[in-house]
């Protein structure tokens, strides 16, 4: 990183002025957000702009017998009513998904989930559009509905995808049933089976990770503006991956990418909901092309919660084989993955179950095998990563639950069993049984630090005393997770989206006055990129963060990148930022040497300047060097001071953490109070501790929401229940527990600055921790698992079943 040892005390003033890596700098984004000066997509108003509203199916499965748009078209102020028939001439009635499937943009003859897109009304304003939407008459013929993925695989199950008739090979291999999408396996099945056969102890547990939704504060939406004279298309869109959207729009529309400009303005949260391309975007673009006017489409909350990208819906069976000391010998996992009516998961193309194979966790497990089957049901499509790397939340949930199940079977303490199974520090880099190469980790000290901080033994003693008292009004539970994540997708040799490697990029231009602008292929949705990227440049190129402008999200100005999700910004784009900074620094070295008339090899970098080795008084500041770059460079050197870097990571990064929760279950009502939550995270090098703290608080709060309240249940008719914020749980400050945070630092050996990414750890790690705590409260009564969400109603049913309610 830096060439010479520094004396922070002596250089304190210059260091502080740089505000580089490690500085708890306030977020540069916040003034505009807290003053209402953000620009979200619904803040975009263009002259002549029209508004589109989607007409959706009330039925989960039905044939469309007819669509009569005549009344709606005749309504004053209505400009168009689009149906699949109108899109067919443009071949836009179906679109490819990121998962290698196709999805109906507007229903082509039948609907396969409730609220599926059927027609698109475009009118002068959203009021007229809403009135006209009621005038579109659609005649349906209901079909049998299947919402249960197990029933979907029965021989006589209704056919959900007529369009796939006869296609017995999908994007991920053979399909063995009309509602089957893929089977994906990894690991050595025979060795794993043999390890199970030979094991002293085995445990098995079924668990459902229910269907949830990322539910960002800002719903999805776009403004599409096609200029027929220039032939170019501009789309403002609330997207986590604007460059990928540009490529998809280019593929769909046949407009060259050079004529397409995608702008992601300020984004009100994404959490995986804003990675994909949705029918509303395509219809808005099509309407703009047809009408020659800008068209805005903005989801309602109900549309957001019931149509654009759910997460999870994983029906998992985990098995562990172990010796009598609790040392794990093998892991076997079977998953039935409910993908809804179209396979629109947002995973790297080659990985239909994402990075689920990180499910051996933090443990040294010699044998493992995983088999995942993807299944169609009459539910809305998705399967995105809700604040997690691809399917990592599911993987971590599985292993962290299973190790508790094993501990209970053997009567071993749940902390002790983890300590016995951790991958030892000296085994890193660690090659897992499922083929992943963990970059670095040091798990034992992390867990021990947490146990000491909370006085673990005292908590267990208190729990034992409460269990011994039949009149105690509460059950006390202690949950532990020691998770390992896999983030930073990813190396292009294994990760691509639509054939594009999952690199990311940074371009830095230093201006004559020494200030700079930097642009990346990522896009912040609350992560604080404007703040933290500038800190990396400050440390690595010696330019104060306060004079660095960070811009993202406009495909016409930013270099191509794959976007922000899966905790990939710091591991991938952050590395590009560091490497572009190093290129700036190396050119600056040569300019400084030229100015001081010494050899570049005799120069050394010192915070914000280059100085002559052994003669530190002779120095040129980066500010002076920047000025010289525009008027006095060495002979043969190009003018200017700028750099670009496209970074293809050699590996993923593997952040980890040790979390502990203490809960009290009220026997009277089933209410659960989170008494204590202690979160220790290790994300490698820490760029901005304040932003990390904020990320962890946010992620823990979301994890709390998932564990205790979020779900999108369906009834047998395929009606999605709970599609409003009255039912769907978004915690406020009132419900949110107090969070205690801590950290260790184990840098990534392959990342230029050792950083691993952090935003998703608290979500991934906390959810099984809450579940483990709740189930631990019942463990002495023989309970090994209860499903999420652990709301009062479900918990009371558990109490009732054990005859201890009230």
């Amino acid at each position: 990183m830096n060439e010479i040892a520094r004396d922070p005390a002596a250089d304190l003033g210059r260091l502080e002025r740089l505000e580089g890596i490690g500085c708890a700098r306030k977020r540069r984004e916040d003034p505009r957000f807290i003053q209402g000066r953000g620009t979200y997509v619904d803040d975009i108003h263009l002259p002549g702009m029209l508004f589109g509203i989607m007409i959706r199916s009330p039925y989960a499965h039905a044939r469309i017998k007819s669509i009569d748009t005549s009344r709606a078209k005749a309504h004053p102020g209505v400009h168009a009513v689009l149906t699949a028939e109108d899109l067919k001439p443009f071949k836009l009635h179906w679109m490819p998904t990121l998962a290698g499937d196709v999805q109906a943009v507007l229903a082509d003859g039948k609907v396969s989930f409730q609220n599926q897109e059927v027609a698109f009304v475009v009118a002068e304003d959203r009021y007229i559009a809403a009135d006209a939407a009621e005038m579109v008459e659609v005649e349906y013929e209901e079909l049998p509905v299947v919402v249960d993925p197990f029933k979907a695989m029965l021989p006589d199950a209704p056919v959900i995808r007529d369009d796939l008739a006869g296609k017995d090979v999908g994007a991920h291999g053979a399909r063995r049933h009309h509602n089957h999408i893929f089977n994906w396996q990894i690991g050595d099945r025979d060795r794993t089976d043999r390890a199970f056969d030979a094991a002293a102890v085995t445990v098995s547990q079924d668990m459902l990770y229910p269907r949830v939704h990322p539910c960002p504060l800002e719903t999805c939406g776009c403004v599409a503006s096609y200029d027929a004279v220039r032939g170019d298309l501009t789309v403002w869109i609330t997207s986590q991956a604007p460059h990928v959207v540009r490529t998809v729009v280019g593929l769909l529309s046949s407009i060259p990418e050079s004529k397409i400009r995608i702008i992601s303005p300020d984004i009100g949260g994404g959490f995986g909901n804003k990675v994909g391309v949705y029918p509303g975007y395509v219809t808005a673009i099509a309407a703009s092309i047809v009408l020659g006017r800008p068209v805005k489409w903005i989801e309602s909350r109900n549309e957001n919660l019931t149509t654009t990208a759910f997460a999870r819906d994983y029906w998992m069976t985990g098995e562990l084989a172990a010796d009598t000391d609790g040392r794990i010998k093998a892991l076997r996992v079977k998953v039935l993955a409910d993908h809804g009516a179209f396979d629109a998961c947002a995973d790297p193309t080659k990985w239909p179950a994402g990075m689920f194979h990180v499910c051996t966790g933090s443990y040294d497990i010699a044998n493992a095998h995983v088999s995942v089957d993807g299944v169609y049901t009459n539910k809305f499509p998705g399967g995105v990563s809700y604040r997690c790397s691809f399917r990592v939340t599911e993987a971590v949930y599985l292993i962290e639950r299973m190790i508790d199940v094993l501990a209970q079977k053997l009567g071993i303490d749940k902390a002790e069993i983890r300590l016995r199974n951790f991958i030892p520090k000296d085994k890193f880099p660690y090659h897992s049984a499922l083929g992943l190469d963990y970059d670095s980790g040091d798990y034992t000290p992390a867990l021990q630090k947490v146990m000491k901080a909370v006085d673990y033994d005292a908590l267990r003693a208190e729990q034992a005393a409460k269990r011994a008292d039949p009149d105690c009004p509460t059950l006390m539970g202690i949950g532990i997770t020691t998770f390992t994540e896999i983030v930073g997708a990813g190396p292009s040799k294994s990760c691509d989206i639509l054939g594009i490697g999952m690199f990311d990029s940074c371009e830095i231009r230093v201006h004559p006055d020494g200030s700079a602008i930097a642009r990346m292929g990522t896009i912040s949705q609350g992560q604080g990129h404007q703040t933290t990227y500038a800190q990396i440049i400050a440390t690595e190129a010696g330019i104060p963060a306060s004079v660095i402008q960070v811009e993202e999200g406009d495909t016409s100005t930013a270099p191509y990148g794959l976007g922000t999700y899966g905790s990939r910004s710091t591991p991938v784009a952050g590395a590009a930022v560091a490497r572009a900074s190093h290129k700036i620094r190396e050119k600056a070295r040569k300019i400084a040497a030229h100015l001081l008339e010494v050899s570049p090899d005799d120069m050394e970098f010192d915070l914000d300047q280059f100085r002559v080795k052994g003669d530190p008084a002779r120095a040129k500041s980066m500010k002076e060097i920047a000025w010289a770059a525009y008027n006095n460079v060495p002979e043969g050197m190009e003018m200017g001071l700028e750099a670009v870097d496209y970074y293809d990571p050699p590996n993923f990064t593997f952040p980890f953490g040790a979390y502990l929760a203490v809960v009290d279950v009220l026997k009277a009502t089933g209410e659960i109070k989170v008494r204590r939550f202690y979160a220790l995270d290790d994300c490698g090098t820490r760029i901005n501790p304040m932003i990390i703290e904020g990320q962890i608080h946010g992620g823990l709060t979301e994890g709390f929401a998932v564990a205790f309240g979020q779900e999108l249940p369906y009834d047998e008719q395929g009606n999605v229940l709970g599609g409003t914020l009255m039912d769907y749980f978004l915690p406020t400050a009132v419900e949110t527990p107090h969070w205690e945070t801590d950290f260790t630092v184990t840098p990534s050996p392959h990342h230029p600055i050792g950083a691993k990414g952090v935003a998703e750890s608290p979500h991934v790690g906390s959810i099984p921790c809450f579940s483990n705590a709740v189930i631990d409260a019942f463990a002495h009564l023989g309970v090994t698992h209860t499903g999420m969400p652990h709301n009062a109603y479900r918990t009371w049913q558990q109490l009732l079943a054990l005859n201890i309610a009230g």
Partner: protein
Amino acid sequence: MIPRPFAYHAPDSIGAAIALLSDFGDQAKLLAGGHSLLPMMKLRFAAPEHLIDLRRIKGIRGIDMQGDEISIGAMTTEREILASPLLAMHLPLLVETARQIADPQVRYKGTIGGDIAHGDPGNDHPAVMLALDARFVLVGPHGERVVPAADFFLGTYVTAIEPDEVMTQVRISKPAVGSGACYAKLKRKTGDFATAAAAVVLRMDRGICADIAIALTNVAPTAMRAEAAENALRGRPVEDAAIAEAGDLAMAACEPAADLRGDEAYKRAMAGQMVRRALRTALSRCTG
């Protein structure tokens, strides 16, 4: 989330509001705080052609006490109830209730009159009004009448208000000195309606329950009194066994509807738990 077109009226007197009601009949809806009506309109579950906003009418907002009678204007907001020193002193039950309604944004707009007149069994004021034996002042073209809470709630979204009447005031007799009260509400989260809730007003006399009112929220088509539970307690010491029995009797009386908050069995059980919780707290607050 766009309502159907409607005409908006904002009369500046009760007389003008009643005249509009008389003109438009069931095509009109009164708008108080709007936090029940407007969401229903945005979902197009409700589509009044005329919306009559009461906000400009003077004299139907504010809290006052004459003798032992507390009067609260129907357009008084939950926030004003929460912040009222008069209510904190003489009717803390109402303050405790308001604090458990929705969230701060809703409480700045939502009104006590709207909460009551909407006739939603999930709203919190109706049960509290039943427990307090409140009286509602209704004004119509033929003058004013006063309807006791016990005669007001007729069914879900159905009340004793005639289509051409406006609720102007809530009147509550100050609870007897030494009595204790509590509103216990089980909800899933901030902003939610009750899974079950219970309002209790209790007066003790030398260790004996001298008077008791128990009313329940969201466990029947309307807010309801749990009379069997009250009768079982009246004249008895309020001990653990009696509290448990009162809970059981309240459970037997309610008729909850299943939804995502829970099935009938859970809601019934929670009604019992809330009665017990409210009774214990009310008892601890009694000084008689």
